[in-house]
């Protein structure tokens, strides 16, 4: 043993940072006006910093404060955060405060991010999935300083994060248990919290923000905008996939396509006698579109990545369905829900922008670096999974039948469904010979093309023309023709080998609405259990309170 070795440099660094901040804080509490001085005291050049950017809630006050620091004092930060949602998340790079970035999703900032990368102002480490980035918090990307966001704190510094707990537990656990500094912005300081979501001794400083934190109702879709084609595709999903496999545990991606499925369960699903046989357990945010199915008794449980603005009272009133605390309010947790979606769900269904002939799919488009958040984990076969279910076993049997050797070892497979209309708006084809992702990788010097869901994980492609069951495709050529065979009148679809596609149809690899016994005359908006936001409010018994932008009546 080396008596001269020091094993507590991180802890001593932490104490030095806290000593510099001592005069700024009253216990753990720091006034909003002193936030700049506090951040300058606790952050050192070159630090790894997590500025809590979630899918929904944002530590916006701390983001503004960080972006306004003096780059002579604080610079070369390495930002490690799941989402880049606010302009300030990139201002810190433009202002010379941060230099390196590891992240998961940059949705609205994707175009500006691409510009900053090409001008050399941002060096990207990697684009991760949510789970992957959280995992690296506990390996080699642990934050030195975490700037997080909570609904409320008490005098001791305990935090209440409530429905939008989201990423906070993963960030704080990694930071607090490796001698990091945790700073929380809170909407209010109260005498007694509804419950403790983050204990005070994991939190160093609490700052009341001048205005409540930014939060986005990302998962609300107005049923008035659902098209008849989306109704038709939802009918095919329910009858052609959910019923065929008896899918009980699932995750829905965001969008109108999946909202249509949710709104068809109590109508079309009911008419097929599927209640209780499909869609009982969900890894899903509290989608307003699921209210009619919940009210009709379809849903047994929902665990959520985050909450949804306006759903608070409804969730509180349905504790048998949602995960709620002893205080009655919901608790989400992105890390646990991502794990649930990956390991405990039998099906993921979501939309995409481009699909190629190998069924690789991507939402990456030229001139934008956006990342995919959780979709790659939801939309991937969980190779480590060992527990069986009927749906998982059936998918595994279909993909392995006729194979030999190691590939024939019995195992299940996750159902991963990509649901797209063949043409997007402005007659843009969803099917392409080559994904934009390849060009993007060349332009931005990425080690891999940014593919959202790999073709060998996709089990089904669903378009208005039909369902391609890729589990049953036996060769690359069959897979290609199965993709072409549901690609409609896009150039990819028009270039199909008609004879081969008809052969695939005879074998059930491709199924058209008529093959599924679907009466296309039912594909009207009348089949939706709610046709407007107002219908959703009524279905909730007045408990759902949509944000103002969705109140159109």
């Amino acid at each position, binding site marked *: 043993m080396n008596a001269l070795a020091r094993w507590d440099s991180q802890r001593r660094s932490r104490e030095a940072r806290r000593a510099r901040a001592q005069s700024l804080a009253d216990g753990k509490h720091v006034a909003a006006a002193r936030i700049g001085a506090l951040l300058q005291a606790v952050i050192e050049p070159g630090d790894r910093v997590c500025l809590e950017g979630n899918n929904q809630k944002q530590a916006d006050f701390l983001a503004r404060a960080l972006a306004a620091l003096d780059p002579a004092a604080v610079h070369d930060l390495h930002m490690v955060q799941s989402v880049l949602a606010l302009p300030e998340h990139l201002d810190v790079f433009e202002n010379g405060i941060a230099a390196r970035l590891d992240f998961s999703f940059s949705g609205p900032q994707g175009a500006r991010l691409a510009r900053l990368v090409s001008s050399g102002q941002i060096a990207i480490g990697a684009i991760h999935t949510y789970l992957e980035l959280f995992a690296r918090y506990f390996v080699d990307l642990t934050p030195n300083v975490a700037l997080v966001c909570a609904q409320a704190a008490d005098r001791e510094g305990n935090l209440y994060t409530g429905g939008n707990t989201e990423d906070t537990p993963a960030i704080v656990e990694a930071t607090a248990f490796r001698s990091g500094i945790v700073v929380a912005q809170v909407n209010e300081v109260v005498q007694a919290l509804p419950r403790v979501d983050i204990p005070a001794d994991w939190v160093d400083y609490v700052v009341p923000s001048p205005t409540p934190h930014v939060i986005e109702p990302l998962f609300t879709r107005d049923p008035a905008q659902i*098209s008849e084609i989306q109704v038709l595709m939802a009918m095919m999903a329910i009858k052609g996939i959910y019923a065929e496999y008896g899918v009980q545990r699932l995750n829905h991606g965001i969008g109108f396509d999946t909202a249509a499925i949710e709104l068809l369960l109590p109508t079309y699903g009911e008419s097929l006698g599927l209640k209780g046989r499909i869609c009982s357990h969900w890894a899903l945010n509290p989608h307003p579109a699921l209210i009619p199915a919940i009210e009709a008794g379809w849903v047994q449980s929902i665990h959520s990545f985050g909450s949804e603005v306006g759903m608070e009272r409804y969730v509180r009133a349905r504790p048998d369905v949602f995960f709620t605390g002893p205080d009655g309010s919901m608790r989400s947790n992105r890390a646990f829900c991502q794990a649930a979606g990956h390991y405990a769900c039998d099906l993921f269904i979501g939309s995409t922008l481009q699909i190629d002939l190998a069924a690789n799919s991507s939402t990456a488009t030229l001139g934008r670096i956006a990342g995919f958040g959780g979709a790659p984990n939801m939309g991937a076969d969980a190779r480590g999974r060992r527990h069986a279910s009927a749906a998982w076993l059936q998918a595994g049997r279909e993909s392995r039948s006729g194979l030999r050797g190691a590939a024939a070892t019995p195992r299940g497979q996750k159902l991963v469904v990509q649901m797209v*209309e063949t*043409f997007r708006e402005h007659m843009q084809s969803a099917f392409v010979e080559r994904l934009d992702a390849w060009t993007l990788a060349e332009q931005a010097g990425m080690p891999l093309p940014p593919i959202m869901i790999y073709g060998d994980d996709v089990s089904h492609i669903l378009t*208005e023309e039909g369902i391609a069951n890729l589990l049953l495709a036996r060769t690359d050529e069959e897979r290609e023709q199965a993709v072409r065979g549901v690609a409609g*009148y896009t150039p990819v679809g028009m270039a199909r080998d008609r004879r081969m596609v008809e052969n695939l149809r005879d074998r059930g690899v491709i199924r058209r609405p008529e093959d599924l016994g679907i009466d296309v*005359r039912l*594909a009207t908006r009348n089949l939706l259990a709610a046709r407007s936001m107002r219908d959703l409010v009524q279905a909730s018994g007045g408990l759902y309170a949509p944000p103002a932008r969705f109140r159109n009546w």
Partner: protein
Amino acid sequence: MSNPAPALETLSYAFPGTKPAGPFAPVLAGVVGSGNLEVLLEASAEPVCRFDVQTSARGFGSIWEAVLGDFQRRHDLAGVRVSIHDMGATPAVVGLRLSQAVAQLRTP
């Protein structure tokens, strides 16, 4: 206004068929509206399925021919005239309307 509204494009196709529809009351599916179309099926004396398309979206003739050709390949109709009034519907919507109309035609 100095610029006249762009003219509608008119397309006509006739495909031979072997299954005469016989006499039937006209069938209407859909409405003319943005991104939508109206499909009218009427009985005719010709041994073909004839399509007369009026569309606001110019330049998609080859896709119309493919969509309508596939429809006729599937249904093989004779003695039918199909009138289509389109306001920029996608091929998906066109296909759905045609399927709905023919399903209605076959309902006794």
